[in-house]
């Protein structure tokens, strides 16, 4: 055949092979973690291997909506994972173990289920025994109802309580705070000569004194990012997913057969004093750690540090009490 014909054929074939081959090759050499809404598979892959002391480089992209990436109980800034774009993340681990990574931008009703694990192997340093959560050592039943018969007529003022508490022989320690509900503290104060309203104010002060304004601010941030979608931006249990949770009740992934009372409920209303004033902080910690066992409340044990959970709890009670800033 003519030289021009041969050359043209070679050009065409070469062009096509290049246009197909080069991207394909580069594609196979770019292992990506794909983030999708939990309903469409979540993280893929969702198990990553790493070594103690070796940097782990991750390339993550979103296949649908805005997601975020963070590793639980590690001090790191979460990284946004944007649709169609690749985020580069480098992690370092000093201790072997199984770490949980999770999505940090709400991406649908099942956003909290979007989790994976990083299995870090290496020579174990002194193994740390897992701390027993307070609700276990107190032997609290996390699912027992805790409605109280008496509620304050106005929102208790911690400011007032502080003034009243000056001379009071009362235990304002963290141990007491964590193991007693506001109502129990209210009852324990009946030995004093304070009025009911004044006793509530002292309880409010007890709660305030066991946290700081930084902790409250931190708790508010954690609440906004993790809880508000279901529990409502103002704590009233009317978040954007509240209705969906109620509807999803019957098809809940975690519904146990026969456990009708464990079906998806609507999210707790933190502004309801009947319920909240009967809640022991250790019980709330337990709920947050363990999750709701079929109610749609996520388990946060592998995600939040203990300090984060206490901050969050302090913020949740702030719907009940008027704290001074």
């Amino acid at each position: 055949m003519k030289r021009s014909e041969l050359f043209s054929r070679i050009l065409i074939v070469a062009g096509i092979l290049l246009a197909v081959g080069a991207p394909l090759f580069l594609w196979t050499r770019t292992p990506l973690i794909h983030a999708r809404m939990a309903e469409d598979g979540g993280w893929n892959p969702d198990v990553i291997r790493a070594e103690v002391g070796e940097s782990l480089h991750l390339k993550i992209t979103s296949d649908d909506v805005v997601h975020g990436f963070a590793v639980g109980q590690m001090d790191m800034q979460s990284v946004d994972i944007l649709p169609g774009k690749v985020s580069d993340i480098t992690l370092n681990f000093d201790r072997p173990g199984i770490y949980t990574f999770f999505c940090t931008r709400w991406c649908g009703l099942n956003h909290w289920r979007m989790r994976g694990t990083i299995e870090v192997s290496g020579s174990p340093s002194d193994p740390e025994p897992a701390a027993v959560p307070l609700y276990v050592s107190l032997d609290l039943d996390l699912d027992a109802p805790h409605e109280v018969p008496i509620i304050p007529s106005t929102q208790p003022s911690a400011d007032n309580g502080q003034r009243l508490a000056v001379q009071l022989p009362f235990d304002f320690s963290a141990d007491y705070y964590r193991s007693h509900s506001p109502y129990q503290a209210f009852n324990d104060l009946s030995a004093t000569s304070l009025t009911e309203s004044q006793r509530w104010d002292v309880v409010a002060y007890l709660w305030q004194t066991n946290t700081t304004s930084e902790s409250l601010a931190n708790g508010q941030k954690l609440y906004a990012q993790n809880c508000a979608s279901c529990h409502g931006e103002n704590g009233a249990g009317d978040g954007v997913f509240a209705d969906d949770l109620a509807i999803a009740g019957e098809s809940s992934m975690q519904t146990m057969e026969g456990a009708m009372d464990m079906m998806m409920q609507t999210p707790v209303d933190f502004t309801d004093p009947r319920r909240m004033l009967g809640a022991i902080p250790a019980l709330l910690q337990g709920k947050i750690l363990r999750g709701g066992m079929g109610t749609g409340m996520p388990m946060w044990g592998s995600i939040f540090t203990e300090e984060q959970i206490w901050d969050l709890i302090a913020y949740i009670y702030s719907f009940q009490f008027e704290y001074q800033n």
Partner: protein
Amino acid sequence: MAKIELTRSPLIKNALKSRYPQLAVFVVMLVGYIFAILAGLIGTPVGSHNFSIVFVWIAWWAILILVAVPFFGRGWCAVCPIPLPGEWLQRGAVLSPPDKRPKWLNLRVPKIFRNIWLQNISFLLLALFSSVLLTTPNITGIVLAAMLFAAIGLSTVFERRAFCRYLCPVGGFIGLYSQTAPIELRIKDKQVCVSCEGKPCYNGSQVGYGCPWDVFPGGLTKNTYCGLCMECIRTCPHDNIAVNLRPFSADLSKPSTRMDEAFKAFIMLGSAMIYAGVLLGPWGSLKDAAYNVGTSAWFIYAVIFLAIIFIILPGIFRLMIFPSPTGRDAALSLSKGAGVRAFASLSTALIPLGLMFWVAFSLSFVLTNASYILAALSDPLGLGWNLFGTANIAWQPMLTSILTPAQTLALVGGLIWSARTAQKAAGEVKVSPIPVIVYCFLTTSLMLWLLL
């Protein structure tokens, strides 16, 4: 206004006659097309960051509907890569024609399919699934691949460019709208063709192939079916074929009376309005219905879509031009056949209008999303590349202040153009153009309301 023969310029004539410039463009297009298929299949599923969606439905579509069709008619067909592998197989060559007989089946397309009804149907099929097609890279990749393989398959069975002429969904409307374009390919002197032996422009010769579009260049009076492939310019031994610059919509002064083309005009008019309402409107339930293919909502949407196109739009048109089925027709002593021809020729007034509807509609989403083009160029597969440094350009609508005036200009301009076309077409069949003009005014007002 007279015609200007562009091929009088030796530069232009040689550029068109030589196979090399064309081949260079073909290679680039074919490689780009195959890359788009690949990107659709293995790239990110996020449409706005995938080369296939951005370069097909934003970049290519913008160039097609805003530049190629209005100014070059079937100019896109001249460079389209889809028929090429099949055609090269048919010819057994990429560049020069060997003198041996074609090696494949080379059957003639059956008469029943030798019209644009298949193209009407293929366009509608894409249109009904358009919400998914326009936003999902792997679907776009599959459709592009399917068109390529369909073209190859048809080339091994039928003669010439059967896919292009009878199946391609794009070719259907490009052909119709090319009648409005200011460029044409025509013979210079009819007598030369009458005395020409062998008609190599249609049958091929030592230096070139017979028209791949199954058109006899000697009889070309309209742009509709000529794909500007330039093969006839190469084969004509008498140098009797020219490419001319001419006034816009010169072909519409001889309005076609074909029903397949008439319905194509309604299909394009109707789908532009439906797209404007569904995709650019504030009505979320319509978008859900259009996107969730397979649900009963989509089914209802599809039925309404087809009803608008096949029953409502043509029905109202027909009622307006012939208000009473028996009275007026009888008064004009139009036979049934003549009535059908009048319907078809009057509907050619909708051709410039439909083109402008599509221009106005496309301007909106192209200007809004053109910023994705540079980003997709640098990171075509969404793998985190940055080939040209533009991968992180943020989304930003462009030229927003000129959008609404441009849309008004296009739509009102299209209306004037259609009204003039209606006058000429109506003059030919001796009816009043006013019903057609009013119809155009009403649909234009509806489109203005949908877009502005």
